[in-house]
């Protein structure tokens, strides 16, 4: 394990264990997981279904709590935060991109992108400008008023990425972002994520089965049975 920046890692995961259930049916989802992610890097977490990828991402984003171990994001120990603290972390520092896009059905593309800005109570004019820029960034400026069910899967995921970037997070967590997309669309989304890393200087922790995604990542964390078995450069 090594940091990516001399100033210290943006994300630091140490000795994390997570177990679900108890007794003979208990599942050890994470075992002694430790790694770092630096600012402006894209790290892919790969592994079979049930290997613990999503659990790891949830623990990193504060959606789940580890049984033991620590997770530090941008100097803040996530595992020590209460509910409001976690909410604040997600508003300012960590953003999510879900496999199933996670857009709010009743909101237009622009309104979905504006949700984090509303949470931050950004002034309306500034919010609209930022939303327009982000939609332009993901190539959906002309689809701003369309609702999710009027967009294709790839478009929805691009809206989700734009929404994730709206509040200028430092860490973007993407859980199988191309899982529901065809290869071509998935490639476009991956290219977008890669571009975001470059353009916005954010760290991206992405779980994927996609070899292309692995190829675009700065590092790959391979998970098996709740453990990181190897870390390799692409």
């Amino acid at each position, binding site marked *: 394990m090594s940091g990516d920046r001399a100033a210290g890692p943006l994300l630091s995961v140490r000795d994390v264990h997570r177990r679900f259930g108890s007794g003979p049916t208990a599942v050890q989802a994470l075992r002694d997981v430790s790694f770092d992610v630096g600012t402006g890097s894209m790290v892919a977490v790969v592994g079979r279904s049930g290997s613990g990828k999503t659990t790891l991402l949830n623990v990193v*984003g504060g*959606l789940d709590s580890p049984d033991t171990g620590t997770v530090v994001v941008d100097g803040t120990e996530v595992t020590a935060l209460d509910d*409001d603290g976690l*909410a604040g*972390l997600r508003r300012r520092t960590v953003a*999510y991109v*879900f496999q199933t896009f996670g857009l709010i059905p009743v909101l237009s593309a622009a309104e979905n992108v504006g949700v984090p800005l509303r949470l931050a109570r950004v002034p*309306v004019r500034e919010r609209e400008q930022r939303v327009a820029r982000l939609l332009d960034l993901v190539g959906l400026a002309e689809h701003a008023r369309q609702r999710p069910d009027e967009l294709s899967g790839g478009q929805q995921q691009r809206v989700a990425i734009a929404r994730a970037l709206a509040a200028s997070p430092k860490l973007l967590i993407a859980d199988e972002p191309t899982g529901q997309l065809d290869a071509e669309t998935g490639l476009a989304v991956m290219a977008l994520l890669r571009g975001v890393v470059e353009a916005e200087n954010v760290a991206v922790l992405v779980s994927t089965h996609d070899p292309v995604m692995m190829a675009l990542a700065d590092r790959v964390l391979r998970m098996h049975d709740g453990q990181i078995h190897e870390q390799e450069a692409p």
Partner: protein
Amino acid sequence: MLARRVRTQWALLATLLLLVTIGATLVGTCTLLVTRTAGQALRLAATGAPAADVATTVYTVNVDGPGAASVAADTRTALTTALAPFPVAITVRAASRMRSLPGRTEAAGATPETYLSGISDLPARAVLTSGRWPRAVDGRAPVETVVLESTARQLDLAPGRRVRLGAERSVDAAPALDVTVVGIARPRPGTGWERDPLTGAGYDAVVDNGTPDQTAPVYGPFLADLDTLLTSGSAMARLEVTAHPDLTGATLPDLHSAAAGVAGADRRLSAVYGDRVQVHRVDARLPPTLQRARDQQQVAAAVVLAVAVLGCALAATALVLAGRLTAGVRAGETTLMTALGVSRGQFAAAAAVEAGVLAVLAAAVAVPASAALHAGLTHLPPLAGSGLAVGPGTNGSHLAAVTGGALLLASVLVILAVRPGGSAGGRRTRTEMLARSGADLLLVAFAAVGWWQLNGQPTGATTRADAVRVVAPALVLTAGAALVLRVVPPVLRGLDRLARRARGLAFPLAAFEAARRPHAVAAGLLVGLACAVSTFGVAFDATWERAQRDQADLAVGTDLAVAVSGAPGPGDGAAIAAATGGTVSPATDRGIPIGQWTGGAGEPPRLIATDTRPARDLLRGRLDSGDTWAGVGAVLAPTTRVTGVTVPAGAEVRIRGRATGGLPVVVSPRLLMQDDTGMRSICTGPRTPLDGRTYRLPDCATAGGRQLVAVELPVALAEPISFDDAPTSDIAVTLTVPGTSAATAWTATSVAPAPERLGRPGVAVTRAGAGTRLALTAKNVQFSGPEEAARTLVATAFADPGPVPVAMSARLADELGTGRGAELSLLVGTTPVAATVATVLPAVPSAPGAPGVLADVDTLSRALIVNGELAFPLDAWWVGNPATADAAARATALHLGTVTTRAAENARLIGSPPRAGQSSAVRLLVLAAALLLLVGIVLHVHSDLQVRAVELARLRALGVTRREIRTTLLGQHAGVLLPLVAAGAVVGWFATRAVTPLMIRSESGAAAVPAVLPHWPWADQAVLIAVLLAACTLAVAAVVAAQTRRADAAYLRVAP
């Protein structure tokens, strides 16, 4: 599959079961109200009715002397048989034909008459003041009798006196009869003495006896033992046999059997009597009493059935909502099964089995639940107060209605299960929107037709619980709720536009969700309809109660009324004033012909007259169009009060007169005495010869404060003259009254019908020492024609009032085609009175819905007097603003007649057993609506949040706090709920105004008078809506809190 669903979807199925059960329970309870309670109410209406209302009286006239006893016995037997199986108490009252009373000398040679009477329960109807009651005697001994105090005083009788009664005055007359007076008695007021030939007065100087002599003084009765009288050989002028059935513990079949029995008694008695009876009539009160109760019951049943239909409509709406949510939950399963080849028929069969099981289970719960609920309702007002409390029970109709209701409601689920699925994405297709619009239009059209039919109901009595009255409220409310659903989206879209410009997330997101999420029409309809129904129910109840109060006010016409049942006494007004402490007025309340018009369908125009000067205090009944009773009274009341000669108590009035021409002229003076209440009593003097001597008139001033306000002098000859002669005479009569007169302007009139027979009538009032002298004169009094021809001088302390101003009821104005300013002729008794219409009112007090006129009783009395009718038109005493709480009881204790009060009439209308069920049903409907609303809300919100659980978790992942999510969800549901509740209340208000006045009928089924005014009790409605909102908010908050806890970001780990 059903078993598997029970395990996996038990909560959903339990909710469906609950909804079907609520609907079936409501139907079952309403069924018990219109069957079990109604039957019991009918029984109570009969068993609790006053004895007079269930009695049967056979009136026989002119019964032969030898057959009297057998006629009485046959009548007893016939009535006892007709009223079987009830035990019967028989009372008999008999009055013999008139007999002469020898040995009694009357002024001017009149022949006095008397009669015998027998009363089976005499001690209950009279008080013995001396001696003893008469006993049965054999045919040889003198008949033992009791006489009334007034008779004894007039005839100077005392116990032990033997009196010979002359022969009957008829063909085949019974011979003279000796009687022995064994006691003196006083009539008990209110015990039927009005049926006595002299109404219990004991003496009347002028009785029309139908003979050529026309009039005679009559004394009596000589009250004998009934059986002795009936076997004495005397013919009976009247024989009345009354049967009072004891209906304690009566069953409905027995009541119907007895009613049928007495209804057919007339025909059977005709065959039994043969020639022994000249005329007979059967007055059976039980059948009309039962019919009235049945009419009331049917009027109430229409409302209860309307409640059941409304409840079913609500339950069906809730089931549509639940069914759609169920279909949504099972969408995946349905898709899979369809893919596996399951046909639509198989889906329908499965749905039918599931619905059938639900219906059976719901019925199994609803039968005991509705029985228990019904029993509970009967222990609460108003049923409990009406004596209708019962334990839980059931009957065939109940079981059938609950089962049928459950099956009907469950069938909604089958229809929903087999209908084609909705479009993808929850958005409606154009076809679906068109279908909904079409359904809405159809519903509105049906509602309009229903209202139109309801509005077109006849105003007359119609008790039929027809489909229109039962279904129309549900149609109007459902159509209204469907329409207001169209109003809510624009409101929410307005909120949406505002939210776009907001900075924060929680409330804007709530607005977006509320405005943009595809709305569950069934949920919206349920909220709107439930709120409309519950507010409508509260308003209906309040309107009904107010309508009963309005009807009671107008029906009684005043605060307390005493319908006079016997001959009025001169001190009655003072006694009532002392007992009640209010504003007391004598009143007229009778049917009269107006001109040539006698009314239609046995309903003559009503004449109501009372003292209109204190109309504000005395008259009651809602007056529309801004009129007030004080204003009406001001139009009708005379400008001045009548002031006559004040006569001290016990003062002796003397009369002396002369006639020119040497003719044996006699007058029969009648003095009109006025008391403090304005009541005028006649004091009749004997036939007095105008021979220059002074005669004393009997007790005309029995109490102080009386005023002599008029004198009538019918002038006649003491002996018949030849028709060929045409003698004339001038008369001069002086009345000396030991009292003072404040007014000297008396007026003399020669009254109709032959004023020309008495010329130049005059009166002069002068002081005579401590008294007043009235000198009455007439010139050229013509004695041609029959002796009894009218030559009457009337002197009054007031002038001719002219046409009597009257307020005419709108119905009478309509039927006569007249209005304000019209001239009328009122025939009061046999005296025509000119009247002029001063104003037209919606209805006249005490005569709701009838064609009638209201007049001032003083003015009316004056008009009658100047037209030669001195008798005061007294039918009742009216009391306004009684000062004591027990005024009714105290007035009843006077035994002057039947006492009615506004409050008692209102209580009777509201608490009448046959009608009490409808209020309970309406209140139950309000509760059921609230319950269905709550269940529907919980179901909808729970389902909505389940569907959105992942979305909520993702919001948490975006950094939205739990509090913000709760705020958003509560705001979203409140945003939908509030306008729907408000819109529902508007629909309830509209339905209250449009439907309630048409649904509420009088107890006979006719349109209520005064017209029903819709009443919207703002305070009660505010409380109801607040409670509904609070309950819904609590329910939504509970569900939201639970779902928010569940939909944490960690939910994403297990979410699909």
